[in-house]
Structure formats: structure tokens, C-alpha cells
């Protein structure tokens, strides 16, 4: 049987895997000519067929030239209606489309952007990395819920939806879906295993690589201002062609990207202060908090209340909190997102109470008199209430000390677990 066309692509792109797996499942043959990305896609004969110069690109034997991985895969599936890859009815086809789209926008887009940041294609920003990771978590979590009650995503047999999800997860498990996360999503793994081991697909997928811990950022050895790559350095890596999500109607749309402000931070322009935050952080770490010779004693001896201020922080939606360790993680996430303000901030926050009856509260020691410029680097800063504390006031002082000593009690709720930002 003759090949249906030629596929120009790079190995490792999950779109490529999905296209090839679809062809294999449909019993159709694809030719894969020799292709070198960044070279061949600049040549006139390639550009004549695919003026945008992106891959994957499909040249049909019947004269159809197509780009956009998802469109190519869907077309191939449509060429073989008996394969059932698009389901049996229009409704099933719509569900297949939905899952394909979901895979791209809710899971793969985060993989891609994280990859680009970690490899210098896009300026790295820890806050964004964290936000993307959490967004992706939501995607994984939804997928796990969907797969709890299903063997295949649509109907009772393999469709393009399963192939696409498996292709995305194949990449995820080598990058962001690490061992601890995989333990939380047994159904995603069960489905993944089922799909990549289907006899017709085994060869296309090959052996997955399972990462132990999600790939982290290593700052470049010599600090040079990272330029955004117009022409990224040649890499075997997935060329971005359908990066971000945010084409979606989810209200939390369009929330990624940026980078630390290049502009001078107004906090650096404040008059010099005698209180050194780094010294405080050391004192807090090395000494007991309370008692003679403790860090609180050091604090009162050295604090400069003109140059710095102390704030009480309370989470606004305590009725939503459930298990203590999850609330603790929430504080951790908030602190991660405050990274950009590390030079201006110290925090000690905790979970008080018991499961399903708890609150998050704590204190911040920060540069200047206004909390907003310090905390607004975190996208979720508005989920917390902030009140400046007066350490001459005995109640405020007791609260401050309790938050630092991790023995704070509020309305009978005792401190269970805490985190420090330092």
C-alpha cells in the first residue's frame, strides 16, 4: 500500500509522536524524508509548500499540504473511518476534539513553556515556572478524575484522544510529571501504559523515560542578560509551534509569561537603613527565637522601624482550607511566588487549627512602610489580608512573637505547621 504522504518533523516533538501513532493505528503509511530543522525549512522548495516554515509539516500524496500537528493527526484519522479513531458519531468526534484540545492547552503548553524557560529560549522566571507548574497540576488532576471511570477516553476503543494524551504524557513523565506526582495519578499512568503498549503503537512510542524529580532551573554560569531567541541555538528540541494555552475561554486565561521588571525597584531607592535583613535571617536561623540571647532579643536591639515594617498576614478564604499539609503547601506556593522580593522580605506563616477547621496566618518583615510593592510580585497576593503591626502595642507584639516562635494561638486554634520565607 502506498504512503499517504511525507511528514517533515523532528523526533521528540509530541505532535510528531501523535501523528505517527495515528497513522500506525489507522494502518496508513507515512514517508519520513531526511529533514534538518533550521536548515531545510529555509530552503525555497520547502517554503514554497510551507511558507510559514514550521514543523510538523505534511505533504499529502494527493497534493494536500498541511501544517499544525493536531490538524494533521485529525486528517489522517479521518482518512480511515473504519479505524474508529474519531469515534462513531459526531458527538464522539467532538469529545475526541475536546480531549485533544485539553491535552494541548492544559498540559502540553506548560511542558513546552517550562522547557523553553529552563533551556534559555525564553527568560527564566521562577514565579512563572511555579504558576505554570500549578496550572499543569490542575490539568493532571482533571485528567485523573476523567480516567477514574474510563479505560479509553471516548467510547470503548482507542481514539485520537488517547493517542494525543499519551503523546503529551510521554513527554511529561520525562520532564515535569516526576515520581511523587506520578504516585498521585495512578489512572493517568494506567491509561498511558495501556496506550503506549498497544501492538500497533509500541514501536512508535518506544520506551518512556521517567524522571525522578521534575527538572529544575540551573542559572547560567556567567550572568549575561538573556536575549529572547529569535533564532534559538540549534537543538534537537521540540521547536515551538503551538506553545501557550490561553486561547481558551477559561477565565484564568492568558496568565503566563513575564519576567522580573528591568526597571529600578523603588524599594532600592529608599534611604539606607541600619537594619540588615540578611543578618536578621541568620540570627533567626541560628538562635532560639524566645529567651535571652534569642533572635527576638536581637530583633528588638537592631530593628529600624523607619526603614522596615512588620505586617500581619491572614488568608482570606479559610473556609476553603482542608488538610493541614495541603494548607502548608499553599503557604509554600505563596512564598515561592514571592521569590522576586527575596531581598526585601522575611516571612513566617503557619497553619493553625485542625483539618477542615483551620486558618493561615503569620507575619512579614519587609522593607519600607508599604506592603504592596513587596508582595504584589506574587500573582495571588490579593488572597491575603495585610495589617501593619505596631510593636509598641502588646497584642500586636504578642502576635508577632508567636508567629516567629511558631507557637501562635488564635481563638483556640493552635499552630500546627509553619513555613519561613528567608
Amino acid at each position, binding site marked *: 500500500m502506498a504512503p499517504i504522504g511525507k511528514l517533515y518533523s523532528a523526533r521528540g516533538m509530541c505532535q510528531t509522536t501523535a501523528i505517527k501513532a495515528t497513522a500506525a493505528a489507522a494502518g496508513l503509511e507515512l514517508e519520513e524524508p531526511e529533514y534538518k530543522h533550521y536548515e531545510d525549512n529555509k530552503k525555497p522548495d520547502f517554503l514554497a509548500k510551507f511558507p510559514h516554515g514550521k514543523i510538523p509539516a505534511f505533504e499529502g500524496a494527493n497534493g494536500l499540504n498541511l*501544517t499544525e500537528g*493536531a490538524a494533521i493527526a485529525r486528517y489522517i484519522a479521518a482518512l480511515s473511518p473504519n479505524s474508529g479513531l474519531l469515534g462513531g458519531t459526531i458527538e464522539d468526534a467532538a469529545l475526541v476534539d475536546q480531549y485533544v484540545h485539553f491535552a494541548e492547552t492544559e498540559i502540553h503548553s506548560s511542558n513546552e513553556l517550562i522547557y523553553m524557560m529552563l533551556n534559555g529560549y525564553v527568560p527564566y522566571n521562577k514565579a512563572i515556572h511555579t504558576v505554570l507548574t500549578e496550572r499543569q497540576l490542575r490539568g493532571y488532576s482533571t485528567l485523573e478524575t476523567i480516567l477514574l471511570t474510563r479505560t479509553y477516553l471516548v467510547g470503548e476503543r482507542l481514539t485520537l484522544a488517547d493517542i494525543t494524551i499519551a503523546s503529551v504524557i510521554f513527554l511529561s513523565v520525562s520532564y515535569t510529571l516526576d515520581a511523587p506526582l506520578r504516585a498521585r495519578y495512578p489512572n493517568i499512568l494506567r491509561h498511558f501504559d495501556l496506550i503506549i503498549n498497544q501492538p500497533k503503537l509500541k514501536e512508535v512510542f518506544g520506551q518512556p523515560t521517567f524522571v525522578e524529580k521534575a527538572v529544575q532551573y540551573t542559572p547560567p554560569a556567567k550572568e549575561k542578560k538573556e536575549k529572547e531567541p529569535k533564532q534559538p541555538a540549534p537543538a534537537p528540541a521540540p521547536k515551538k509551534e503551538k506553545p501557550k494555552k490561553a486561547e481558551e475561554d477559561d477565565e484564568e486565561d*492568558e*496568565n503566563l509569561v513575564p519576567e522580573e521588571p528591568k526597571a529600578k525597584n523603588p524599594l532600592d531607592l529608599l534611604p539606607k537603613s541600619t537594619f540588615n535583613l540578611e543578618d536578621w535571617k541568620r540570627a533567626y536561623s541560628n538562635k532560639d527565637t524566645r529567651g535571652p540571647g534569642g533572635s527576638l532579643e536581637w530583633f528588638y536591639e537592631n530593628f529600624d522601624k523607619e526603614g522596615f515594617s512588620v505586617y500581619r498576614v491572614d488568608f482570606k478564604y479559610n473556609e476553603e482550607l482542608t488538610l493541614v499539609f495541603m494548607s502548608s503547601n499553599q503557604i509554600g506556593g505563596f512564598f515561592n511566588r514571592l521569590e522576586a522580593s527575596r531581598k526585601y522580605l522575611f516571612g513566617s506563616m503557619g497553619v493553625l487549627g485542625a483539618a477542615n477547621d483551620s486558618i493561615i496566618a503569620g507575619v512579614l518583615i519587609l522593607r519600607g512602610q508599604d506592603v504592596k510593592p513587596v508582595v504584589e510580585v506574587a500573582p495571588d497576593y490579593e488572597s491575603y489580608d495585610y495589617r501593619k503591626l505596631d510593636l509598641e502595642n502588646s497584642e500586636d507584639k504578642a502576635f508577632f512573637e508567636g508567629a516567629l516562635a511558631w507557637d501562635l494561638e488564635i481563638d483556640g486554634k493552635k499552630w500546627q505547621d509553619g513555613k519561613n520565607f528567608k
Partner: protein
Amino acid sequence: MAPIGKLYGHPPSLRRKPYILSAAAISGLEIDLLPFEFGVTNKSPEFPLAYIPTFEDNEGFRLIKGTTTARYVSALVPKAGLLGHDVKETARIDQWVHFAGSEIFVPAANIYAGMVTKDLPTFTEEQRKYYQERVERSLKFLDDHLASRSSGLLVNDSLTLADIILATAVQRAGQTVCGAKEREGAYRYVFAHFEKVTNDERIKHLFGEPEFVDEALSFKAE
């Protein structure tokens, strides 16, 4: 004629991207728009996946993801031609829909979020430049393609889903990176396409004011 189903997520989401309702209008189908309160309705138990818009037909069949729903609606009335007339045309339509989303809408929307709605608090000039270049590269390619089309439409001679979705993406580009000069000059075929689609009698009312910028957005002294 009875509605084919209902849509949760009106108004905010649907006002921003009118493609589901446009597909319905061209296909001669009606969809009920349900009142919706963000944070309340989508957190209730019937919304396990908590995404808007969510479509539900009269038999309880549910779909999320706007473009998926628009495509489904388009598939219900093949005669209306929104998905073309054969497998090849459909594939081309899928290609352009995908392209419009990832290569134009997303980068333009990131600029919009960074500079207009300020949903991205630390959006910088470097970011803006990066996304602008992406959009421009895609618009140039698109403009060349549309210049070669006698119908002025993407795939064949009558309106398809690709044209509708592209118009939404181009609208975002016109609100961010394409000022009057670019719209009348470098990308005139792209914006002529936008005019053509949004002036179609059947869907004019769904697009409303384009809110284009006079000059491409840039960081002046903030």
C-alpha cells in the same frame, strides 16, 4: 425552531470570543444562553470540570473548550459549509483554526493581558517585543496567503469555521500589535478579511466594536 442546547459561561467568556454563537448563527441553530456567575456557577457540583464555556445539549451531552464546541456545532449542519465539503477542505480548516489560536491569538492575548487588563503584573518590554515578533511573523505569512485568495476567505468561497476563528484572533492583534498604519499597510489583506467576516449579516451583531488601537501598544514612561 427549538434550541439545540444551552451554553454556560455567558457573558464574559462568550462576549470575548463569539465563535460558538457565530457557528450556530451560520448553521441556523439556536443555543440557550444561561445566566452565569463566575466563581459560583462553575463551582457548583454540576460543573465537575469547572471550565467555561460549557455546552450541554438536550440529551445531556456535554462539551468544554470553545473551539471544540464551535467545531461540533459546525458539524451538525454540513450544508452550511462551515467545515468545508470534503476531507481535504476540513483538514485545511482545522489547520487554520489551530494556527489562528496558537500563532496569533495566544501571543496577542498575552500582550493584551500584560498591557491592557494588567492580568500579568510583571509584564515587560522584553516580553512584549517577543510576542509582538511572533504575531508579526504569523501575520505576514497570513497576509501573503490571503492576498492570493480571490474569495478573500481562507479555504473556499464561502465562510468557514476557520474564517470565524481567525477573525477573533485578528481582533486581538488589532487591539495590541496592529495600529492603523499596519492594518492599512502591511497587513491589509488580513484586516480586509476581518472586515469581510465581521460584516457578514448573520454574525455582525456578535462581534460588536473591534476596539482597535491607533498605534501598536508600547511601554511609554509608566
